[in-house]
């Protein structure tokens, strides 16, 4: 899955888990922290995206990326590596 497609999945999940952001534009530089996500919200968002990607990895492996763009890149790269 491309990084752009993964980023779209992330923004959809963010808007589902944080409904107050429904009308806000999200950019790759946004961080989940700054968007108001607590640790449970973050886990919910990432798990929602992982299910959409059918990417079965431990949540702890998604803790490195600092913003939405880095998270999209990381998940996209991880999915590509697993597919090889």
């Amino acid at each position, binding site marked *: 899955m491309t990084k752009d497609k993964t980023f779209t999945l992330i923004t959809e999940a963010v808007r589902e*888990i944080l409904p*107050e952001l429904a009308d806000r534009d999200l950019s790759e530089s946004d961080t989940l922290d700054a968007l108001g996500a607590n640790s*449970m919200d973050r886990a*919910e968002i990432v*798990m929602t995206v992982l299910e959409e990607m059918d990417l*079965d990895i431990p949540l702890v492996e998604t803790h490195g990326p600092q913003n939405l763009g880095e998270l999209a890149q990381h998940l996209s790269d991880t999915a590509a590596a697993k597919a090889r």
Partner: protein
Amino acid sequence: MRHPAGLVVTGLGVTTAVGQGKTAFTDALFAGAHRFAVMERPGRQLGTRFVGAELPVPKPTSRLGARELRTASLTGQVALTTLEEAWTEAGLDGYDADRVGLVIGGSNLQQRELVLAQDRHRAKPRFLRPSYGLSYLDSDLCGLCTTAFGIRGFAHTVGGASASGQLAVIEAAEAVASGRVDVCVALGALADLSHWELLGLRAMGAMAAEDHADAPAEACRPFDQGRSGFVYGEACAALVVERAGARPDAPAPYARLSGWSVRLDGNRDPNPSLDGETAAIRGALDHAGLTARDIDYVNPHGTASPAGDTTEVAALKACGLTHAAVNATKSITGHGLTAAGAVEAAAALLQLRQGRLHPTRNLTDPIDDAPHWVRDAAVEADIQHCLSLSMGFGGINTALCLSACDA
């Protein structure tokens, strides 16, 4: 001896299928309304056609944001709405949060939504949402309610099967009487059954069979010869308990909590016990400093269980309560299980305030003529002292005595 604490109820919230909010609920009680139908909520079928009373999902509270409400279960949403009504009536906004407690009656309260979540992820369990780790706990409801209302004194659940709601009222009363908090809210939580619980309760013979699906209005018949078990009804009620006169701006109380009693049968099974029920009734009367003659009205457990109703009537007779008026709130609401004791305490308080008793639906051929049944229509009644009774599987018997403030 009369309990020295002088405890009163200053706020009520009620959410049932027949009425959401105490005004609509009171009207429905006196009209003998019902909402029994073949149940349609997802997670309650699995090929069955059980009759029950399902309530409309309430409007979300403004005390929580969309993010918090997204993961609130039906039980949680109904608890918030019901607590809001009681809280607002009692005027608790701004009161010292450290001196307010919350007791939630019930256990295994969100079974239907857990089953739905399990079904959604059965084929891909590793993607189960992390929030499941919170929401499978009944105490998540404490977290939800204390977040919304800022309660800081204490909050926990109490489990007593179908006596849970009344047990919550009793524990709230004990918490105020002991000085642990100044104000304690008792909430009988909605027991959100899945088809598995329905099937289990039917298999054990406690719940009415599916053969009422074509005549749902007639399915629920407490104390009637034609009864065949309880009919489930979604419900929730909240009662605000505090010391009379402790807050200058508290509203006029509904009544005094004049006595209560909890008695166990030492019996793991679901069967009722005449000894346990009479001991609970006598214990509450003794606690209140009253005798059976002082009781004007009994709100019984009255589930329409074949053995339960028979035993309860025997207990009323053994305790000398056949002069007191008796109606069965569950004939109107259905059996709220964990909520029932709180819903029925609320029903008793609302009737006491109105000076009227609601009819009992479907009581066409009573199992015993000795009790003073309120049958087809509401009646006027000057209630000074009344009893509300609850029993739960596992040999739990509770009785609560409510008294007019000037009695």
